[in-house]
């Protein structure tokens, strides 16, 4: 039995692509190596509790019916109603830059862009006009020019904002929420991330990532798609430059017209028979993270913390890079899911802290040292995070953490690179006919970005007049 399309990976991009193809009446299966779906954005059970691995925030939040924005487009294409997502908006969030032990600059924002503008005005009154000109000049989702793709965001920001500390503050959240490159990104990427975080906004589906995944799986299966868990792909089969099928880990071969892969660029190449890339291959992303999730004995709000997300830098220069040390506690994200405006709070409050980490270190340890180093790294992260939030450690009932090693193991992404390769394949094309990339390495990151990526490549592949799925 021949498939019209096989999709590698039941992450956001794979599921979205699967829904689109199934809706078009194609015979399609999503093949996932893991026994859980979601990829980088998943969930697991530990000690009877459910933990999430991705989703601090669904970016690109807009109210129902807002025209011409990514969230509305995605919901429409996947035929999911805005109401079904039950999105709880953030209270407010902030980026914090510590200049010295007694001086921290705090930029506040919410889903109302006016709040950010007011915050800029309070911090640096003389920069308000420049900030507004910067916002007006941001490239849009689809009108970025080649120059926008090659210009540094920092350099462009500095043309509008003279105060270097404000430039630094304005880089923190966009870098953290989607830059595959260290320290800086292109002006085009900055435009997308700034819009998705600051001009649109942040929310969380009630029930967290699991609720969103349930909706996607339900849609996929309702359209007749086939979800095959524990079906890792060991090789992509091809002859004369054209894909013919895949071989699964257990040796089974499946035939197909087309493969859409969310495994990543070098990972997908390796499945096609290219020798495995070296650890230092520039196409492997350098950014990975350690994250700790702490179950608390009371809500952050009760502990005096009403912020949804804090992006912090404990040094004047924001250290968004692969650290030499196991983890970099001086750069982090503190997320409080209970600080979304929800009428259905999670059964227990929790807080998550995420910091850049060194992949090579975490994959070189034996089990005993791994466990010990994790405790050490997490203690340092929590100490730093507390200085930007509230006393976390005295209130922890249970905590669990994951490292770049975990991310690599469960998602297959080399280097544990959460935002994939710094070199994106925007057209999704590969050297093989019938093989396309979706997800992180096609260019779009984050939950919404990955969904959009799966949709757009699937659309093109259904419509493609030559070699299409007719």
């Amino acid at each position, binding site marked *: 039995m021949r498939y019209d399309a096989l999709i590698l990976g039941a992450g956001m991009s794979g599921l979205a692509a699967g829904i689109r193809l199934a809706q*078009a*009446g194609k015979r399609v299966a999503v093949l996932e190596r893991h026994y859980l779906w979601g990829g980088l954005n998943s969930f697991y059970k530990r000690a009877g509790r459910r933990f999430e691995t991705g989703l601090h925030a669904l970016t690109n939040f807009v109210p129902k019916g807002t025209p011409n924005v990514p969230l*509305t487009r995605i*919901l*429409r294409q996947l035929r*999911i109603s805005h109401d079904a997502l039950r999105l709880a908006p953030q209270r407010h969030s902030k980026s914090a830059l510590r200049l010295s032990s007694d001086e921290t600059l705090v930029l506040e924002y919410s889903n109302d862009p006016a709040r950010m503008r007011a915050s800029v005005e309070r911090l640096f009154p003389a920069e308000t006009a420049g900030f507004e000109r910067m916002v007006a000049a941001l490239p849009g989702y689809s009108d970025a020019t080649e120059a926008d793709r090659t210009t540094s965001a920092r350099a462009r920001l500095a043309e509008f904002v003279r105060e270097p500390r404000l430039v630094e503050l304005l880089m923190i959240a966009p870098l953290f929420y989607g830059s595959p490159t260290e320290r800086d990104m292109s002006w085009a990427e900055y435009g997308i991330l700034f819009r998705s975080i600051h001009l649109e906004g942040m929310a969380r589906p009630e029930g967290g990532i699991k609720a969103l995944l349930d909706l996607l799986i339900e849609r996929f299966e309702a359209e007749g798609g086939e979800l095959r868990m524990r079906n890792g792909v060991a090789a992509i089969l091809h002859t004369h430059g054209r894909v013919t099928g895949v071989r699964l880990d257990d040796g089974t071969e499946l035939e197909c017209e087309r493969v859409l892969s969310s495994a990543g660029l070098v990972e997908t190449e390796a499945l096609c028979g290219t020798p495995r890339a070296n650890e230092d291959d520039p196409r492997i992303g350098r950014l990975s993270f350690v994250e700790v999730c702490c179950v608390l004995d009371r809500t952050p709000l009760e502990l005096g913390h009403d912020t949804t997300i804090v992006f912090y830098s404990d040094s004047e220069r924001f250290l968004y890079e692969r650290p030499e040390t196991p983890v970099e506690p001086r750069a982090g994200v503190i997320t409080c899911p209970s600080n979304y405006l929800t009428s259905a709070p999670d059964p227990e409050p929790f807080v998550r802290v995420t910091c850049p980490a060194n992949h090579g270190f975490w994959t070189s340890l034996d089990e005993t040292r791994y466990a010990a180093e994790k405790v050490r790294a997490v203690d340092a992260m929590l100490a730093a995070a507390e200085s930007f939030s509230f006393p976390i450690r005295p209130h922890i009932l249970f905590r669990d953490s994951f490292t770049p090693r975990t991310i690599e193991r469960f998602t297959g992404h080399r280097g544990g690179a959460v935002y994939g390769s710094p070199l994106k394949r925007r057209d999704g094309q590969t050297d093989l006919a019938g093989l396309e990339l979706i997800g992180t390495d096609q260019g779009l990151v984050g939950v919404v970005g990955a969904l959009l990526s799966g949709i757009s490549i699937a659309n093109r592949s259904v419509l493609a007049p030559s070699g299409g799925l007719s």
Partner: protein
Amino acid sequence: MTRDEIVLAIKDIIATIAPDEELGGLEMEVRLRDQIELDSMDFLDIVMELRKRYGVQVPEEDYMQLATLKGCVDYLGPKLESKALVLTALKG
């Protein structure tokens, strides 16, 4: 299908692909995209559903004919004459 049923068939397809749109007051002779949010990708989805539900093929050069509800009825009338109405979103 009668002409009224064809209108219903189209509305049902739109309700399926655009669950957040209000379709009660759609005018027959005004362009659909001037009444609700629909872009070219959505039109493609309408065409796709027509194929899936009724086996009707609409070639790309005829997409223009589907711009209004009246256009849909005129163009699809002969093609859907012998087909039974399928409702998914609007049933019940």
